[in-house]
């Protein structure tokens, strides 16, 4: 890979007539821009932003639907030396007032100079982005400037150590954490990825349905092709999720070679594509499709591989996070895909010990590798007491390396909590065996639903606000749903008095609606319980894991077997194997 001092120079160096982004709306509607045209539009956005008063170093929040225009606005911001951040576009399910407060929290924390919206931004939401005199609302200029902007800014002057953009790692409301990343750190990450994945600029083409506000969509599927000068074929995540089969259509037709997606998608696509059409698609162009951002499951990978006749070694895995720009580990391209080992279930649960056993033992737990460290990355596994854990133990994964962020933007408090002796505490649990990382779960209370991170505290706060619910006696948790290959959100809450349970269905409906209105996420199940049901810790707080165990005992239908039974009965869901 060529060496560049900053991301704007990398974009400037791409051949003008090389196709860059193809945006796929439907099989009869798509748009392709070359690198030259992309730069022209990005410069036009840069000029328009500059005229609105945006300057070097200013933070810029981009609220636009997944589109070429969103990407040129982001690149235009970087051309000015400003610091762009993508946020999720308003979802029709979310109440404007709730949306406003979430957005206000983020823009205040970033001290954003401007919020850039698209031309079609919903009128009724406009008032929600007008956030006071410090933050200006700018409509992105129409994507096709009539004339070529002649002004070429001095992109070579952008300091490699300056912040290039901000990624948000997780969260929907007040807990948004902005990860500020320098040009140099991002370029180092891209260099490591290009090497590990053996990126070949003349031949590789990326496929993506991933949102640009998520590290996988932003780094792997926008910044990487921008720096390595690769074409990318992109869909909107909102359209893809309604028609997951379109992934097969796009890859078959455009011959993409490289892609990433969270674990759930590996079974969502085959299960939501009628089986009679599986053979219509040809994915033989794929060189690597990488399972990333949710715990990797061998069964999900196997399902995708079998359904679409994928060659060995194409489906791989990676462990990644916004705080490290993106990837920390990657399975080796050219090998037969991530290895799976089986562990003694009893030893794992009782003592968090890693004791490999034969696959066919009744209590054996499968664990799938996330690969080896990328160059210049290091990791350690820490015990609960913060010591380096024994090699055969599960513990918290901590990392350091040359791509790691310096801290959460304007949040020294959160930053201090996240580092120990210069190592970043990921909050993930795992172990290392023969040099490969296996991620087994979360230490921090984070739900990962379809690859997106959701804080249970956000949900608990909303449920607690209902007068029928005992404040603070609510637990939101993720329960693995094997049909979807991801977590479902399950909520258990104590009512203030038993009489509230006489119309539990109505109360449940209201709580469900208030969660959607605030966060835009649907919960699978809400369990309303009488007073004193939730297990408390000695400090009087709701105890998460003990409450979870009690709920699982009382509601064995939440266990995996029952979900699978339902899946088999559903005519649209046809598990393989």
């Amino acid at each position, binding site marked *: 890979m060529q060496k560049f001092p900053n991301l704007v120079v990398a974009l400037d160096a791409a051949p003008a007539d090389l196709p860059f982004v193809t945006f796929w709306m439907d099989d009869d509607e798509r748009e392709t821009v070359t690198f030259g045209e992309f730069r022209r539009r990005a410069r036009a956005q840069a000029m328009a932003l500059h005229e609105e008063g945006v300057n070097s170093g200013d933070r810029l929040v981009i609220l636009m639907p997944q589109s070429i225009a969103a990407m040129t606005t982001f690149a235009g911001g970087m051309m000015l030396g400003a610091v762009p951040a993508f946020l999720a576009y308003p979802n029709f*399910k979310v109440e404007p007032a709730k949306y406003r407060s979430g957005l206000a929290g983020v823009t205040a924390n970033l001290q954003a100079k401007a919020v850039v919206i698209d031309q079609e931004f919903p009128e009724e939401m406009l008032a929600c982005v007008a956030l006071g005199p410090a933050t200006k609302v700018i409509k992105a200029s129409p994507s096709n400037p009539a004339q070529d902007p002649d002004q070429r800014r001095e992109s070579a002057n952008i300091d490699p150590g300056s912040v290039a953009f901000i990624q948000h790692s997780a969260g929907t409301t007040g807990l948004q954490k902005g990860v500020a990343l320098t040009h140099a750190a991002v370029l180092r990450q891209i260099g490591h990825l290009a090497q590990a994945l053996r990126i070949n600029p003349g031949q590789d083409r990326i496929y993506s349905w991933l949102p640009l506000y998520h590290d996988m969509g932003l780094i792997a599927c926008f910044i990487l092709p921008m720096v390595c000068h690769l074409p990318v074929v992109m869909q909107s995540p909102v359209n893809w999720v*309604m028609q997951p089969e379109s992934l097969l259509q796009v890859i078959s037709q455009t011959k993409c070679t490289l892609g990433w997606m969270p674990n759930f998608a590996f079974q969502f696509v085959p299960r939501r594509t009628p089986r009679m059409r599986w053979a219509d698609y040809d994915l033989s162009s794929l060189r690597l499709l990488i399972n990333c951002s949710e715990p990797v499951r061998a069964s999900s990978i196997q399902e995708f591989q079998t359904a679409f006749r994928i060659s060995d070694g194409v489906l791989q895995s990676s462990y990644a996070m916004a705080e490290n720009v993106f990837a920390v580990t990657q399975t080796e391209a050219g090998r037969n895909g991530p290895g799976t080992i089986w562990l003694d279930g009893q030893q794992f649960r009782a003592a968090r010990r890693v004791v490999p056993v034969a696959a066919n033992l009744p209590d054996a737990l499968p664990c799938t590798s996330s690969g080896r460290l990328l160059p210049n990355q290091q990791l350690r596994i820490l015990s609960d007491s913060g010591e380096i854990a024994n090699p055969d133990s599960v513990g918290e994964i901590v990392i350091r390396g040359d791509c790691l962020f310096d801290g959460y933007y304007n949040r020294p408090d959160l930053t201090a909590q996240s580092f120990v002796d210069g190592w970043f505490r990921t909050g993930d649990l795992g172990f290392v065996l023969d040099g490969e990382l296996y991620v087994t779960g979360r230490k921090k209370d984070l739900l990962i639903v*379809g690859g997106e991170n959701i804080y249970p505290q956000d949900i608990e706060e909303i449920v607690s606000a209902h007068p029928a619910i005992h404040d603070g006696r609510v637990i939101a948790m993720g329960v693995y749903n094997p049909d979807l290959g991801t977590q479902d959100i399950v909520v258990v809450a104590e009512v203030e008095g038993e009489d509230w349970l006489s119309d539990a*269905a109505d109360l449940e409906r209201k709580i*469900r609606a208030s969660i*959607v209105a605030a966060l835009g996420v649907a919960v699978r199940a809400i369990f309303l319980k009488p007073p004193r049901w939730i297990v408390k810790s000695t400090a009087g707080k709701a105890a998460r894991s003990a409450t979870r165990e009690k709920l699982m005992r009382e509601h064995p239908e939440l266990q995996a077997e029952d979900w699978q039974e339902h899946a088999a009965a559903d005519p649209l869901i046809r598990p393989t194997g």
Partner: protein
Amino acid sequence: MTPEENKMIDYIAQLIRKPGMSIDENTPLVSSGLIDSMALVDLLLKLEELTNRRIPAGKVQAKDMDTVAKMFATADRVGKPRR
């Protein structure tokens, strides 16, 4: 209600697994949290089957699928003949 709308309602009742819950053609499904975004594809595939049309996802938004009545109106608006 048309027989197709009734079939869709039966299908949704089965999908959300709430036996006591009554749904009609105007019950909000997505905005009420009964249906999550990952289940929209199930509704779209069922709608294609019941209307015998192909419905391009690129022309459909989640809010177009919020009620059974809206789903069938969407199928009329953007549906194409089967390939």
